[in-house]
């Protein structure tokens, strides 16, 4: 251990790092490795068959498609909300700012049943769509609505601090040089915000892919149509198909790790971009 670190007068390094590594191994790493070791008992064709059945492929399409659409909506409206909260003054602003984090704090099951009640055919919002023949609850659109809700704070909270730290001199210079407001926004402000915006987008997307609680109530969960991949894992588990459930879990885990890598690269880019200005 001692060779690993630089000298410090402070005590407790061995104890603190030792406990941290032991805890992480027992709680996180060993259980996670169980999924990979279990799956390695399958041959490659068995694994491939388990994760590419038509029902599974349909669940990927829904999970990734709805997550992507929700993250796009969150990127656009998250940027708008961050802009309005940083730049403008209006009554109730502090309350709005605090409530943006609601999807982080509200248990997903509560969000799920509330959104289902609202968007059902007789719900407060659903009743306006029913007459024009649009069903939201119990369809893939419902999945998109739930994923938009749970991903809402990510873009706001990543863009907001960058926007707050933006030097007014940049915009003044642009204006002095004859740029109009839209040009200043698209050529000066947006490039500075872009890494943070993309980080927020990636965080919202990553969260949406794994989301379960808020989706299962509103989705209707029809195989091939409105069944998300995490639900399919549970279905397989309930049918005692441990190998199938674990194989799907491994696919989800690999995608999670990839997203984590992408997010780390984006955050590094974001820090470099903002510190360069």
């Amino acid at each position, binding site marked *: 251990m001692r060779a*690993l*670190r630089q000298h*410090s*007068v*402070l*005590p407790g*390094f061995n*104890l*603190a*790092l030792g*406990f*941290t590594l032991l805890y*992480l191994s027992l*709680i*996180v*790493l*060993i*259980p*996670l490795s*169980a*999924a990979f070791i279990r799956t390695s008992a399958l041959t490659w064709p068995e694994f491939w068959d388990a994760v590419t059945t038509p029902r599974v492929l349909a669940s990927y399409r829904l999970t990734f498609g709805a997550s992507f659409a929700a993250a796009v909506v969150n990127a656009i409206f998250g940027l*708008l*909300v961050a*802009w*309005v909260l940083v730049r403008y003054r209006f009554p109730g602003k502090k309350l709005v700012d*605090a*409530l*943006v*984090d*609601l999807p*982080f*704090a*509200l*248990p997903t*099951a*509560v969000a799920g049943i*509330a*959104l289902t*009640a*609202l968007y059902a055919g007789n719900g*407060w919002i659903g009743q306006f769509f029913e007459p024009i023949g649009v069903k939201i609850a119990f369809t893939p659109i419902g999945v998109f609505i739930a994923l938009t*809700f749970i991903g809402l704070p990510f873009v706001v909270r990543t863009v907001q601090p960058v926007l707050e*730290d933006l030097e*007014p001199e940049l*915009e003044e210079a642009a204006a*002095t040089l004859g740029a109009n*407001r839209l040009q200043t926004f698209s050529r000066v402000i947006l490039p500075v915000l872009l890494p943070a915006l993309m980080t927020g987008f990636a965080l919202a997307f990553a969260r949406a892919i*794994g*989301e*379960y*609680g808020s989706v299962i109530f509103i989705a209707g969960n029809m195989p091939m149509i409105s069944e998300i991949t*995490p639900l399919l*894992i*549970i279905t397989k588990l309930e049918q005692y198909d441990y190998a199938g459930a674990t194989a799907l*879990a491994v696919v*989800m*885990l690999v995608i*999670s790790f990839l*997203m*984590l890598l992408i997010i780390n690269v984006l955050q590094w880019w974001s820090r470099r971009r903002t510190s360069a200005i």
Partner: protein
Amino acid sequence: MTPQSMTTAALPTPAPATDLGHRREITSEPAWVRKTLIGTALTFLTLFLFVPLISVFYEALKKGVDAYLAAITEPDAVAAIQLTLTAAAIAVPVNLVFGVAAAWAIAKFEFRGKSLLITLIDLPFSVSPVVSGLIYVLVFGLQGWLGPWLAEYDIKIIFAVPGIVLATIFVTVPFIARELIPLMQAQGSEEEEAAVVLGANGWQTFFRVTLPNIKWGLLYGTILCNARAMGEFGAVSVVSGHIRGSTNTLPLHVEILYNEYNFAAAFAVASLLALLALVTLALKTLVEFRNRQQENIDEH
């Protein structure tokens, strides 16, 4: 938030000076653009945040206060409340100790593999809740690694309370550590080094020097950790087995009531969790405010 924006929010500021007024003109938008943007943002937030929140309380009280009180005081609901409190009462302190230890090692010392360690701590955030539950089934379930051994000694972890506690611990691992690490890194270790040089031992240094410096960050992380611990659904759902009155947490109880078409009762129990969320947000805002106040005092 910068200190500047805090003072403008806290004090009724006088009209900006003329040069500021000029600046505002060239780096701001016409009034109609401002109003349209504010209106669009608020409409979006109303539809996606405020209406769902209000609807929880509306649906909960739709059948009257008596039905509401009956739903949250019936034995299964009380058992669910107790289990949720128990799980949080174990998961939060355990992750608090872990968070402090991890932050102490990472923020106060230099060692190889540090950024990898930080990424590993964040890992549970990126794992789907369903997968988080599944991996514990693979370790402790009947078909799992330790399953036969546990069965021999008649120890139940999956479909029992220990599994629920473990799944809750897993999903809340990063909360306190990720608040403390950047905070303690920013604070440096000069104060602790001074204490040690003056003869304090490790624990004295921690409790008298470090803890007062990190108390708001620690509280902030604890609040968020607790909210997630009490509200977790997916991971707990996989390991719980849904035994009414015995292995049902509050969120799982909401699901059962909802699937039985007992909507008023489901929303009544859900409203307790929504209240928890509102209290969490209020505390979080308060801690952020105090934290900024402390930063301002430290600066001057």
